[in-house]
């Protein structure tokens, strides 16, 4: 029996500012060398657990503790945050925030500098650690010269230099594109094998974490433990959907096919999952039962982007001869790696940046069908046609009251008072915010704030709205809430363009995906077609859907049709 490194015993925690405890009577152990995943919906207390393990609780946050928590055999309340930092290395969700050095080398050295390690040792250790996480070529680079994945590697190196026995990852996948996320999980796995460290991962994207083996999953709900078992056992229960965590898509598909999942099938990974001939026959039957062709939306063209190229002042060409057409009533995903040009494309369409070549025009102007070239218009005028919703609602909200915020665009356009009141009320109704219209924005949840920002754009009645990462950092429940809302808007005729890293989102909600790599559009087709084309997936840093893998496993050649069938099943179920 190996030694217990972390031991929670009837542990509770209440933040000083809150009435109810966030963690209630937790008891669990983590043993040396284990790899444990802690998952649960937003607000379940999983980040609070992370704070308890790394010592931010009780040393940086105020509140009341009861029960006991020991790390490496020592009661944490009796230690200091610095003693804790020698035992637990934390890689934060926001790798930008964690990057405190001016360059990669300084950031990796940070913890050692604070320990007064002599400079010659610093230089040697930094060099060694940088090579383990393969950032050796970037030692002198500033954080803004690195990609999201590289920043995370630097963060990891920054905690590894301390030779800590416990590595804690707080939502490591949150800001990464799918392929980078997959590599990150693989890296964590390799580091653990190399160093024998105990690894704790806090994450709600279960399927993505499980692409490398995990010893145990702790499922949290409302400050208590809902389950503490091996992935195989957990996936054979129906606890995940019950607590608002999305189970791996291949399992959902198997369940649709009427197959009962048992731990003996090893459902934690498709790679070694055991499916009997009977199971495979069921999958085939389910697939054969109905087959709907996914058709691209028919409609009148609404927005045209023609041969657009854009080069930044520093000579970096971010868009190269980009052309596409958006039809009225479409809901489109724009996908690709960080730095592929997705955001630049959105900014050029909104007029924040101006293309050097090509034209962008709408086919509708004030409800009349006529071409309207956007390049001659100001940012404000373009906004009457194209609405832009930023990723973080806090970056947009500047008023105290909801109604004020939604009215802002209209007020600045000096519309008559009664017209403003009417259209604000209409928009609030559409967005389900009417009951809250007299509330201060600060009283709303993140998802509701997002709605307010969408409403504040909708009130201007644009022909198209562009959303940057509409569901980033959201758990499945909030994700569903936001996306269902967007779908309803779309059903009411709003044309939606989304920039996203979320493959599920694209599969489930969009009928069309535009894939951008290296500033060019390399595919413009259905999401299922994108995610079942291994070459394209590789090129655009996406991640194949496990449905495709499942199809191959069951001997179904047409992975794309299989995926499409699954999605239409999902949509039907949701519709009910």
């Amino acid at each position, binding site marked *: 029996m190996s030694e217990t490194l972390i031991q929670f015993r009837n542990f509770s925690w209440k933040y000083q500012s809150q009435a109810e405890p966030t963690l209630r009577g937790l008891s669990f152990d983590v043993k040396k060398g284990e790899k444990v995943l802690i998952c649960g919906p937003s607000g379940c207390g999983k980040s609070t657990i992370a704070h308890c393990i790394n010592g931010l609780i009780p040393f940086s946050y105020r509140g009341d503790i009861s029960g006991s928590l020991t790390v490496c055999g020592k009661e944490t309340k009796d230690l200091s945050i610095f003693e804790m930092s020698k035992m637990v290395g934390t890689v934060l969700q926001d790798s930008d925030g964690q990057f405190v050095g*001016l360059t990669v080398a300084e950031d990796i050295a940070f913890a050692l500098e*604070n*320990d007064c390690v002599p400079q010659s040792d610093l230089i040697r250790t930094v060099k060694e650690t940088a090579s383990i996480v393969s950032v050796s070529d970037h030692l002198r680079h500033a954080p803004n010269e690195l990609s999201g994945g590289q920043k995370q590697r630097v963060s990891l190196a920054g905690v590894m230099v301390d030779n800590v026995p416990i590595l804690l990852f707080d939502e490591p996948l949150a800001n990464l594109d799918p392929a980078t996320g997959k590599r990150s999980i693989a890296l964590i796995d390799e580091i653990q094998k190399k160093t024998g460290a105990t690894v704790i991962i806090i994450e709600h994207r279960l399927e993505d974490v499980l692409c490398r083996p995990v010893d145990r999953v702790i499922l949290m709900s409302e400050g208590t433990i809902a389950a503490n078992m091996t992935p195989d056992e957990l996936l054979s229960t129906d606890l995940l959907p019950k607590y608002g965590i999305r189970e791996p898509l291949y399992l959902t598909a198997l369940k649709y096919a009427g197959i009962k999942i048992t731990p003996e099938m090893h459902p934690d990974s498709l790679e070694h999952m055991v499916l009997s001939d009977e199971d495979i026959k069921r999958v085939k039957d389910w697939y054969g039962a109905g087959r709907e062709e996914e058709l691209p939306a028919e409609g009148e063209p609404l927005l045209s982007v023609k041969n657009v190229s854009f080069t930044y002042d520093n000579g970096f060409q971010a868009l190269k001869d980009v052309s596409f057409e958006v039809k009225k009533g479409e809901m489109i995903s724009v996908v690709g790696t960080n730095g592929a040009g997705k955001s630049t494309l959105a900014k050029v369409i909104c007029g924040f940046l101006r293309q050097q070549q090509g034209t962008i025009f709408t086919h509708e102007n004030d409800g009349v069908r006529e071409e309207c070239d956007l390049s001659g218009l100001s940012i404000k005028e373009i*906004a009457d046609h194209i609405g832009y919703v930023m990723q973080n609602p806090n*970056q947009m909200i500047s008023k105290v009251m909801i109604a004020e915020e939604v009215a802002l665009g209209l007020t600045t356009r000096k519309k008559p008072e009664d017209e403003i009141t009417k259209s604000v009320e209409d928009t609030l109704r559409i967005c389900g915010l009417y009951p809250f219209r007299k509330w201060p924005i600060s009283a709303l949840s993140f998802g509701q704030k997002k709605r307010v920002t969408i409403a504040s754009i909708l009130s201007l009645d644009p022909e198209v709205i562009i959303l940057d990462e509409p569901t980033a950092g959201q758990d499945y429940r909030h994700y569903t809430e936001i996306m269902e809302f967007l779908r309803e808007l779309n059903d009411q005729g709003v044309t939606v363009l989304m920039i996203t890293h979320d493959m599920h989102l694209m599969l489930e909600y969009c009928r069309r995906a535009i894939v951008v790599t290296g500033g060019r559009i390399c595919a413009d087709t259905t999401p299922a077609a994108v995610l079942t084309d291994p070459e394209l997936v590789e090129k655009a840093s996406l991640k194949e859907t496990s449905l495709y893998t499942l199809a191959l496993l069951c001997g179904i050649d047409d992975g794309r049709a299989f995926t499409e069938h699954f999605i239409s099943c999902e949509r039907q179920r949701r519709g009910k």
Partner: protein
Amino acid sequence: MINLFNYIDRPSPIHKLTGATKLICTVLWTFAAMVTYDTRLLILMPVISLLLFRVSKIRFRDVKVMLIATFAFMVLNNLTVFLFSPQHGCTIYGTKHVIIGGNARYALTEEQLFYHFNLILKYLSQIPMILLFITTTDPSEFAASLNKVGVSYKISYAVALTLRYIPDIQREYVDISQAQQARGIEMSKKESLINRLRSASTILIPLIMSSMDRIEVISNAMELRGFGKNKKRTWYVARRFVKWDYIAMAGCALLFLVSIAGIFISGSRFYNPFV
């Protein structure tokens, strides 16, 4: 995008000096220039600093914007001095040689012209050195240097962090302001100043809110990696003083002493050619 600390990396003897040396030298040099009105010294200093500019391989066009700004400020400073105290030179030098204007308030005197000449020289003595310091000091090393000259490492690191996050915050400012402009917040010159100031709040509030979030993350991240644990810390980028560092510091210290000594010897801050 405007970079506050415009470090320009070119191999030169000036670049090789440690940040601490350059900091000490710049401080000594500017004090020397501030204290004295000795015209001989004030002519010598710009000449030396121009020579140092040559050595540093920093070209004037690299610092054009900053030069223009300080030049404009210098002109403004001279104009206001003349406007409010047109006979200041006469008070200082004790004589009055009128060139033109007779007894009028704004009569032009040799003393006043000489005073302005000195004032301009003072600018010319200080500005190139400060620009040189800014363009040749690696921001990474700057915090280590501050710490080396005795500033507490927490304050030094705060300076480094500011440098680290300025680009991020600038970028965020641009993003927020574009999104708000799209909603009709007019920030261009088309609007009156009052309206623009009012609009600025719609950009600043979100910027402040998101910066607050950021501060929490950063301070947590730093504490988790042991910042503030000991009374001291070491620096990855710190550099040792070598011969040239001592020579440079000694040179600047000498200059400072000459400037101070001049005042004591002549009994006045001013060099007076009129008596």
